């Protein structure tokens, strides 16, 4: 009897509790934090010559860890809108200890030279910015020459006469590249099958290797290379010193030629100001430069052969033959396979709790050649893993985005890891900290903190090409020294495949809080689209 009563009581209680649950959860929804992705990389892609945003680009992640790469909203299919793309790492595969993640972003587009940007993400390197310049073949910068020509082919789809194509010599690119195709050469695809047609399109892109403006256009955008097929067939990491680089492309009826049934000849002229890395002496006849090729399919470098500098018509040249087409480069190299990257520690107490994107330049030791340029979102005490260094001594400079130098120093042994303190001086312009807080009012969920995203800014009304990175909005907040009180700015944020622009926003106080909800249609997108974006993104959290 008592047992039955107890069971009855408990049963009734459970029913009551169940009923009460429905009332207890009224107007409540489960919120899932939006900061699912911990590691992200922002790619900011602009045209090399104009700084404009290129349109119609295709992007894909390739390489060792490409399988764990998503866009920042967790989508596997990657797309680029407005020249911006933020990639994120599946949180199950965050980098641990000494095992950084490595992948590359391949960027292609009609009329653009393909760029494959290598990325290394170390533990606690949560945010990275990659500024990518794309070469528009129809509008190259002065430091690059492009020749594009058509040659008729015989009925057997081979040239009846030898074809000789040279890039033009200009003031900014005095050295040329000459390609010679013997008569009767068959043009083959990747599988070795002959491509038939009556017209051969030849494109030769010649980069002035001594001009630092072209650093970003070098394959991969860096002279450091990993997963390289070395001289003895081994896989190594290297750092190149480049004497000449050219991209040679043939197509027949739009199909790219990959191979030939007989060798063709390439001749690359070398600038006489080039100094041999080992001796620092100017290049001379008899010097050895190794010939490397770069695959636009895989983003990997391969050692081809050793070249010897000769003198032809008063020019230093290296001439060689090959049976396949791609990028070719004359390099000296140092192996960096067993190197450890040093960590730079930024001491900038004047920043207080603010952040500021800065330019970190790497120069050779005597400061005569710029090797690498990085954008770093600096906070006081930030540790930044400096990858992509050679094994020999280099110097560094830290600049504001407007070019004011804030720090300079040397890295005596970039190959041995360790921590290096960088004392960052306060800029001449008085520093004013401004905090932007952004929360989102999700339908039926209340106010939530948005996922981390990168925010751009420009003076209100200025050209779109002048947008600069303001920083990362972390947990809905960004504190920066780049905004001036009383000024109006245009802001741009990119999230997944959405780009949000807020124009003519007045910074009228140090602490600005904004909550965006269904009925708050700030920005330049139509209210209906704003609403759709908010509902779509809120459904994820």
């Amino acid at each position, binding site marked *: 009897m*008592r047992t039955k*009563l*107890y069971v009855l*009581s*408990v049963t*009734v*209680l*459970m029913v*009551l*509790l*169940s009923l*009460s*649950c429905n*009332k*207890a*959860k*009224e*107007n*409540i*929804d*489960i*919120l*899932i*934090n939006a900061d*699912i*992705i911990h590691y992200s990389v922002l790619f900011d892609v602009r045209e090399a010559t104009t700084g404009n945003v290129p349109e119609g680009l295709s992007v894909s992640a390739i390489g060792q860890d490409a399988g764990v790469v*998503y*866009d920042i*909203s*967790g*989508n*596997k299919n990657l797309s680029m809108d407005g020249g911006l793309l933020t990639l994120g790492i*599946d*949180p*199950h595969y965050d980098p641990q200890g000494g095992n950084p993640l490595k992948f590359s972003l391949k960027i292609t587009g009609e009329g653009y030279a393909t760029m494959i940007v290598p990325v290394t993400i170390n533990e606690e390197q949560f945010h990275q910015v990659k500024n990518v310049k794309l070469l528009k073949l129809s509008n190259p910068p002065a430091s690059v020459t492009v020749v594009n020509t058509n040659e008729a082919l015989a009925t057997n789809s081979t040239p009846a006469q030898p074809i000789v194509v040279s890039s033009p010599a200009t003031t900014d690119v005095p050295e040329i590249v000459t390609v010679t195709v013997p008569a009767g050469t068959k043009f083959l695809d990747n599988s070795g099958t002959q491509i038939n047609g009556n017209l051969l399109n030849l494109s030769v892109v010649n980069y002035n290797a001594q001009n630092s403006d072209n650093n970003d256009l070098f394959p991969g955008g860096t002279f450091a290379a990993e997963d390289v097929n070395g001289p003895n067939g081994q896989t190594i990491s290297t750092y190149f010193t480049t004497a000449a680089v050219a991209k040679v492309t043939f197509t027949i009826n739009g199909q790219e030629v990959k191979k030939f049934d007989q060798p063709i000849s390439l001749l690359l002229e070398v600038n006489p100001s080039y100094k041999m890395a080992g001796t620092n002496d100017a290049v001379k006849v008899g010097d050895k430069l190794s010939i490397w090729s770069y695959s636009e399919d895989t983003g990997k470098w391969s050692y081809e052969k050793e070249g010897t500098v000769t003198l032809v018509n008063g020019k230093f040249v290296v001439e060689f033959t090959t049976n396949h087409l791609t990028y070719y480069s004359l390099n000296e190299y140092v192996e960096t396979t067993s190197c450890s990257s040093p960590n730079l520690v930024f001491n900038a107490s004047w920043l207080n709790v603010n952040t500021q994107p800065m330019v970190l330049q790497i120069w050779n030791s005597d400061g005569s050649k710029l090797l690498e340029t990085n954008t770093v979102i600096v906070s006081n005490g930030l540790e930044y893993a400096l990858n992509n260094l050679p094994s020999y001594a280099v110097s560094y400079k830290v600049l504001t985005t407007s070019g004011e130098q804030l720090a300079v120093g040397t890295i005596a042994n970039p190959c041995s890891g360790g921590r290096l303190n960088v004392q960052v001086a306060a800029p001449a312009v008085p520093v004013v900290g401004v905090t932007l807080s952004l929360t989102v009012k999700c339908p*039926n*969920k*209340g*106010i*939530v*903190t948005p996922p981390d995203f990168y925010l751009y800014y420009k003076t209100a009304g200025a050209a779109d090409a002048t947008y600069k990175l303001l920083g990362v909005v972390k947990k809905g907040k960004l504190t920066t020294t780049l905004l001036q009180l009383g000024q109006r700015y245009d802001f741009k944020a990119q999230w*997944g495949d959405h780009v949000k622009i807020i124009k003519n926003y007045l910074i009228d106080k140090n602490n600005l809080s904004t909550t965006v909800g269904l009925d708050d249609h700030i920005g330049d997108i139509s209210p209906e689209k704003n609403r759709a974006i908010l509902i779509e993104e809120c*459904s*994820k959290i």
Partner: protein
Amino acid sequence: MKTMTKFIPLCIGVCITMLAKANIRPNASHPSKAQAIIDPSDVTGLRPATLGLSLGFQGIGIESYAFLGSRWQLHAGASYLPFQGSKNYLAFPSRAVSMNLNANIAQAHLLLDFDLFPNAYAETVQNIALSAGISYFVSAKGTAKMKLKDPYYYGDIQLSPDEVGELTAESNWKGFAPYVGLALNNLRISNRVGLNIGVGTFYLASPSVKLNGTNYLADNYQNQQQLKHNLDKYYRWMPSFQVTFNYSLINNIF
């Protein structure tokens, strides 16, 4: 648990004290109604003091009754309910959770019964009383631990419910709670064993609420205010149904 070790002896003490001070009253008009006694040898026409075990929505407990004279009866008691349950599907607007519920109710009460129909013809009707009084909930704590029922997809990235985290909602209505209800007292089972049935409701104190999430559920602290609002709005009236088996301290004749 420490609270309970103090609570149980305290309640037993209250009951024994009540019994010791229990009144007696001659019941001339209704000799069938027993009276509490002082002298067990003189029981004719008296309603006895009783000590009993109770079972009900508030759990298992002890109960003592003392007749105060005329139509009034005082009873005091205490109960304790440890409860565990689970619910595999609880739908929120955008996703469902599974929930483990742990409730812990411990209360002591002091109630007055007033016989509503002492002159009714039917004996059962004579035993219907209005009950009212006060209760103190040493603990009225509910803890719900929730996890997503299904994997969560952030875009194409799948996270298991364990990875998403656990959400713990804790509420406690600790404090004084008035009670009102109806009682059906003194239903005889044997000479010394009777049955009391009580139905009523407590009006609980305003609950304290905590909402804590782990991992990716940490932002749910924002729901704490709404949860408290809901519990305040819908969950102050706590229904009570209690059956008490009484044992008369004398060999009673009702």
